[in-house]
């Protein structure tokens, strides 16, 4: 039994969470540094995983398998494929930035009760989320995945409901009410999805008699496991429903704007850049892997919904008055692209979707965190409260602009690569869908540029006249992310290398071939 690298990668942040929580109330700064330290440690371990992973090798690597709950046919089974590696990398990479960005978000306003330790709690919860997310990317046992899928809601719930923007437009208890509404909505929405999925999970066990992903996929492949068409479809729907809520796919998206609007920027990043990716990841790994036929059966509807998400989300983003809600709707649009790429079922589409998950994570993080810096300065989320920031805080404006350009997937920045792959992949399988989706790039330009114009340009708004430019800590957050966006935009090879083989596996799961180009087909 070699060193359980994957377990370690997931366990480290969990330990970090406990340690952070244990830091005495007075030593807030210590807690922050501890959290940061552990998150960086996790990043290192993730790096090791990335290095140890051989793109050409087995489908699941560094596997671990231990007995867990025999009665439920559950084993503690871990393993990474290319997609998992990419997403673990993303998670481990973003968390340190999230922590650094949220450095002061959880400082208690007044230190009245010595036992109430929000700071420790905040960072402990973030690390706990990281641990669960990482493990869910690693789980190759459906039950294990399900448990984490559900369990990660709880820390997220406390992060959303417990820690809001410092200065919020409107009275304080009103803000608190808004916040807990958003938190409850988030939890119930996702819990409902999870419970529907639970029924499907149980159903799957009844049908398959095991929870081991690889076993089931193999059994499906070599026909030892027959699934009645209707059964497969029901189970697929059970799974997909949960993932579609998490992703979020129209019309199950309404929890996201509330949650992202009310949560602090770092937590919003946690939601949209990391936790929601579990949904799309699971579509790719579980929906397509376990129920290929049903997936193909559902494709038209799913693609339609994805297209609606793309256009609808973008249009609503244009209509928003609140910076964070705008970004939230933009994310809905982007998740539409991801799902589109997954269900187009072409290698370009799926590679694109996987890259999209990573790139969207980074770009949204960049945009949202900078937006967070802006909001904490002015103490308002309303676009109308800004104007001419570019004149007083050029660096802030610049980073914000780059984040925005990444969001509208300007060529040369990472998101362009993935978005174009998704579009091409979709177009080659479903031309009309591809064209409709392409309209998304115009809409994206509208909401990004309008946002930038209203906040950053024009005459300087009195309220922002004294606004300071980015501080060192904030630069440390913003600059690396931007650098990464540029690098991956020009040289995405390191990612595509690990992703491609995984995608080929998925393609073979669903027994799909890429459509041949007309000319070659002719030859």
């Amino acid at each position, binding site marked *: 039994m070699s060193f359980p690298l994957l377990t370690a990668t997931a366990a480290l942040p969990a330990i970090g969470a406990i340690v952070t929580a244990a830091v005495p109330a007075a030593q807030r700064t210590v807690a922050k540094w501890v959290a940061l330290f552990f998150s960086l440690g996790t990043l290192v371990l993730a790096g090791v995983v990335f290095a140890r992973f051989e793109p050409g090798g087995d489908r699941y690597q560094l596997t671990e398998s231990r007995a867990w709950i025999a009665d439920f046919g559950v084993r503690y089974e871990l393993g990474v494929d290319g997609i998992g590696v990419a997403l673990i990398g993303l998670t481990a990479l973003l968390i340190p930035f999230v922590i650094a960005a949220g450095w002061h978000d959880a400082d208690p306003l007044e230190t009245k009760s010595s036992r109430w330790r929000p700071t420790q709690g905040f960072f402990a919860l973030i690390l706990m989320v990281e641990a669960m997310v990482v493990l869910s990317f690693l789980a190759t046992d459906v039950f294990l995945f399900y448990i984490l899928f*559900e369990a990660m809601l709880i820390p997220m719930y406390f992060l959303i409901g417990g820690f809001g923007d410092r200065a919020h437009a409107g009275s304080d208890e009103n803000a608190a009410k808004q916040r807990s509404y958003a*938190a409850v909505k988030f939890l*119930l929405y996702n819990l409902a999805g999870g419970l529907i999925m639970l029924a499907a999970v149980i159903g799957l066990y009844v049908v398959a008699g095991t929870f081991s992903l690889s076993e089931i996929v193999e059994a499906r492949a070599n026909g030892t496991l027959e699934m009645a068409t209707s059964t497969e479809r029901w189970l697929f729907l059970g799974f997909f429903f949960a993932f579609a809520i998490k992703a979020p796919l129209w019309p199950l998206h309404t929890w996201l704007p509330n949650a992202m609007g009310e949560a602090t920027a770092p937590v919003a990043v946690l939601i949209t850049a990391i936790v929601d990716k579990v949904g799309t990841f699971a579509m790719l790994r579980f929906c397509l892997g376990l129920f290929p036929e049903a997936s193909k059966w559902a494709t038209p509807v799913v693609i339609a919904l994805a297209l609606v998400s793309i256009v609808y989300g973008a249009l609503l983003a244009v209509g928003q008055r609140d910076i964070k809600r705008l970004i939230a709707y933009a994310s809905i649009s982007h998740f539409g692209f991801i799902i589109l790429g997954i269900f187009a079922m072409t290698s370009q589409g799926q590679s694109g979707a996987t890259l999209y998950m990573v790139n969207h994570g980074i770009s949204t993080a960049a945009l949202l965190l900078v937006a967070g810096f802006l909001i904490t300065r002015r103490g308002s989320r309303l676009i109308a409260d800004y104007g001419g920031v570019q004149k007083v805080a050029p660096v802030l404006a610049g980073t914000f602009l780059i984040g925005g350009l990444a969001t509208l997937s300007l060529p040369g920045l990472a998101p362009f690569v993935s978005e174009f792959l998704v579009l091409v992949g979709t177009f080659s399988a479903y031309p009309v869908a591809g064209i409709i989706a392409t309209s998304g790039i115009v809409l994206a330009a509208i909401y990004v540029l309008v946002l930038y114009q209203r906040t950053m340009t024009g005459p300087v708004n009195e309220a922002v006249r004294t606004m300071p430019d980015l501080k060192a800590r904030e630069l440390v957050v913003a600059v690396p992310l931007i650098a990464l966006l540029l690098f991956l935009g020009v040289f995405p090879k390191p990612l595509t290398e690990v992703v491609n083989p995984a995608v080929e596996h998925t393609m073979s799961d669903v027994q799909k071939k890429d459509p041949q180009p007309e000319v070659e087909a002719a030859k």
Partner: protein
Amino acid sequence: MSATAVHSLWTTASGVTSAAPGDRFTAPTIEYAQLAPVLIIVGAAVLGVLAEAFVPRKARYHTQLLLTVVALAAAFAAVVALAAGGYGTTKAQIAAMGAIAIDGPTLFLQGTILLVSVVSVFTFAERRLDPTAHGNRVDSFAAQAGTVPGSESEKAAVRAGFTTTEVFPLVLFSVAGMLVFPAANDLLTLFIALEVFSLPLYLLCAVARRKRLMSQEAAVKYFLLGAFSSAFLLFGIALLYGYAGSLSYATIANVVDGSVLEIDPALAGTMGNDALLLIGGAMILTGLLFKVGAVPFHMWTPDVYQGAPTPVTGFMAAATKVAAFGALLRLLYVVLPGLTWDLRPVLWAVAIITMLGGAVVAITQTDIKRLLAYSSIAHAGFILAGVIATSPEGVSSVLFYLGAYSFVTVGAFAVVTLVRDAGGEATHLSKWAGLGRRSPLVAAVFAVFLLAFAGIPLTSGFSGKFAVFKAAAESGAGALVVVGVISSAIAAFFYIRVIVLMFFSEPKADGPTVAVPSPLTMTTIAVGVAVTLVLGLAPQYFLDLAGQAGVFVR
């Protein structure tokens, strides 16, 4: 053998055959060893009564406590010994001339009941929560239950430092009944056991120290409705007896599945008359469903849970459910398996409306104890889903669920006893606002229990729910599972509401204080948390246990 054995136990052996002279008398054989748990408890209870009579008042509390805990521990040891001796599996047998079945379910449930009793007895004995009255430590029970609330005599009793130490023997009697209830192997024993554990509970409900009017009201309601339901049960017993001509489960079962060939033509009207069987079975079912608190026999639950002294509520909520479901299981699996197909639709309906009803009504509750009462109703529904899965997996899943659930319940109610204001326990939800700010630890613990109730993964609640739903699904009750998950989603809402209240809302100025309990209550809560997490993270061992215990002896 047991068919004849039954009445040979109650009558002299020759009762039926011919008027025989007394010298034919043969003493019934009693397997004392296998009955040890029950006997220990009963004995201790009797001792407790004597202690009430003879031990000086000052020493009573400690004597009783010691006696009770020791007795329960000893009984538990006996259960463990029996299980280790293989009585749960290979040597499972009918004891006491067919009156008692010693088998897996019996031992598992008895063990559970005993453990739960121990921890809840700790909360009974808690004396640090209330400020001392006239220099006397006081617990949650009236100084003198007989005195009129607010009367001079009551004040006098308080001044004199009286305490109702009778609760301990009462608990013991009740426990004794509960131990027998799931083990009962004939209808008479079933009825007696039911009464034996119910009557003390009626009394226990009445002896709260604060809010005595509510306490008495709870007692009256519980008593009247309980008696009412036991009348139904008894009539059902009568009809079944009329149907089978015997009280023994085994005989009845034989008659039900028609393996008894010779039927006296004279009895053609009754013997094997399915009307009798169906009505009787239905009425017994009614009686048991009342005890488990299934809709529509649940109406007593909220009021009684709210009115009874919180320690009693915890004990009742946990132990009664265990015992009652044990009896229900045995009835359905041993006596009426031939009837399963007739009862199934009814049970389905009951399970569904219980799950949904409990969850839905709980949403608008404003009192934490009532809220937990409704949640217990919803949980009864979930367990019923497992009961309906007529399969060994079904049995073991129910056993596991009961074990998991009972500890969470006791722990939750123990936490409720801690949150107090001037008027005693502050059970109104509005008072719990901002508890998380005041005392994060207590709030966190309670949150853990709530999440377990909600069936969030990594808690025992989830393992249990999963086991039950899985069993149900495997036995083709997929629809039940779907309803189950829907109602869990609804239920999640109000558990979450409490958490929101505790953590995300500002504490009120006149909010309650959280009393620091003695090690007794601390143990209760600690055990509750520990079991919740262990069964959530690594339930395998206990699942195995329940798995082995999944077979009934006939």
